[in-house]
């Protein structure tokens, strides 16, 4: 047969490579989607069992404050008031992000607009270093430094939302900083050039042009920081005091969704109401991270200039 004809009609090595590569990436995608879906279904089925099987009421779960799932309330439903934990989680998250954002913004502006090569590199490696420290180390520092500090300077026992927020502040700082840096770098340089050419000072350019153009990116960075803070378990658990009480202030012991989860999950038996109630908390966490992701998507769409 004609060698050229066979060469054209049969699959070449490169084609086979292509098909093989495609198959591999499809397999990877399917696996990941399947894992995500099954995690979602697992957590949802366990978390919803509290309400379907154990007949806890959703309203109690979201709006009451008495958390002791193994005991029954007066109406014969388990006491699953998760409001203290939900409030605690939001408390530390919002506070940590409020503390961290100005510092992150300042650092990012300095790194992208003002610093020379050396300063940039130095700060870059510092923020990367902060990301790499394991959370138990942050927790330990929190326990040894932050808690006594809060006790001496603010009062109370030192355990509470304020200490948790201080620890999380350091933990979310690198997340917000590096994402803000990315979005500031993405601002086209001719925006700045035009602004300077029109006679604006450096500060005016930064404030009115660069930051404005990078705003959606910065908001995304903040939301990512919130997601990180919301999901952090260990470091917060070590300093927040873990009392399932409605926080009366920033200095009284309280708890977060994650801290209650990690403390309780080993002491309960699968399928019991105590265990299911913890899964309901996990479901709230999962839904919150989904919400954070949606917010990021939404900002990305809305914020384009």
């Amino acid at each position: 047969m004609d060698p050229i004809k066979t060469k054209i009609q049969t699959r070449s090595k490169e084609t086979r490579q292509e098909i093989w590569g495609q198959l591999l990436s499809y397999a990877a995608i399917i696996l990941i989607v399947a894992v995500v879906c099954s995690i979602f279904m697992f957590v949802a089925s366990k978390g919803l069992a509290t309400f379907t099987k154990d007949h806890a009421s959703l309203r109690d779960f979201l709006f009451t404050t008495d958390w002791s799932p193994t005991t029954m309330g007066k109406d014969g439903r388990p006491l699953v008031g998760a409001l203290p934990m939900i409030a605690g989680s939001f408390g530390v998250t919002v506070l940590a992000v409020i503390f961290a954002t100005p510092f992150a913004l300042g650092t990012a502006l300095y790194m992208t607009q003002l610093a020379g090569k050396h300063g940039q590199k130095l700060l870059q490696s510092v923020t990367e270093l902060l990301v790499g420290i394991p959370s138990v180390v942050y927790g330990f520092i929190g326990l040894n430094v932050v808690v006594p500090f809060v006790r001496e300077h603010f009062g109370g026992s030192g355990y509470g939302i304020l200490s948790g927020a201080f620890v999380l502040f350091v933990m979310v700082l690198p997340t917000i900083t590096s994402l803000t840096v990315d979005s500031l770098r993405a601002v086209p340089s001719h925006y700045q050039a035009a602004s300077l050419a029109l006679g604006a000072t450096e500060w005016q350019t930064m404030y009115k042009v660069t930051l404005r153009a990078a705003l959606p990116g910065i908001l995304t960075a903040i939301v990512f920081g919130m997601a990180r803070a919301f999901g952090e378990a260990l470091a917060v658990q070590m300093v927040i005091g873990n009392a399932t009480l409605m926080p009366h202030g920033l200095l009284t012991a309280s708890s977060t969704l994650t801290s209650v989860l990690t403390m309780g999950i080993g002491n309960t038996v699968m399928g019991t109401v105590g265990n299911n109630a913890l899964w309901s908390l996990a479901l709230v966490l999962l839904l919150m991270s989904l919400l954070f992701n949606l917010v990021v998507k939404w900002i990305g769409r809305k914020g384009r200039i």
Partner: protein
Amino acid sequence: MKNKQLFWTVLGLLLVLTACSQPAQKKVKPIQIVGSSAMQPVVEMGAHEYLKKNPAQKVTVQGGGSGTGLSQVQSGAVEIGNSDIFAENQSGIQAEKLVDHRIAVIGVAPIVNHGVGVTDLTLTQLRGIFTGQYQNWQQLGGKNIPIVVIDRAHGSGTRAIFDEAVIQDAKKMKAQEQDSNGSVQRMVADTPGAISYVSFPYLKKTFTTLKIAGVTPTVNNVTTNRWPLWGYEHMYTKQKTSPEVRALLYFMQNSAAVQTKLLPRLHYIPIQKMQVVKDENGQVTTKSSEVVNDGSD
């Protein structure tokens, strides 16, 4: 080309290795132990002693909590489930299907921060503190410092022992919770006005250990129930067990290496030393099964 060679060599080596390890696994069944993290060191060390005499046996000991241990042994995922609370008292566990092997007794003692000015309380006063009746150490003859109650996580074995002996049917107030004896130690040592409780191995000089109505928390007082805050360390199995598991449990309960050497060194109380027996409802009887006064007030 080189990569392919490497691949086949590694594969060949793996095959040889698995072939080699096959016969060893056939002889003795490995034993998996899961459960209470407080018991983990003791069981690990006991198993280590056992392995010195039975090198062919494989034993893995994992933590994970009493609830995990009980549910895993109930489902048959592991051979032994460690628990520091009675299976009868863990919801979701059918205790009648499990067999209880008690290997040791652990005592629990209330501890306070050095500065509170109190060293002795009655059980009623202690209950009053944990139910929120007292807010200041002054009310108990101490200094003018607010009381900071530190509790253990719900479902912890140490908490179960404390609640059973001290709180009984009263309603405990909600307080800070910590998930380990270690963090309680630290917090009580550092926090002015703090009160909590730890098991005997965690008693230290960095905080004050309380007496209860004049009784000190010692091993001898536990064996006679003069000190009422104690509980068992259980190793639960299914009704039917393999000879390997039985041998290991016999060793844990009866060998001198565990009972007379290891346990006292770790501040646990050997099971044979106990002159009284406690059931799952907290009812204490002497070993001749006659009800004794439970030593409280």
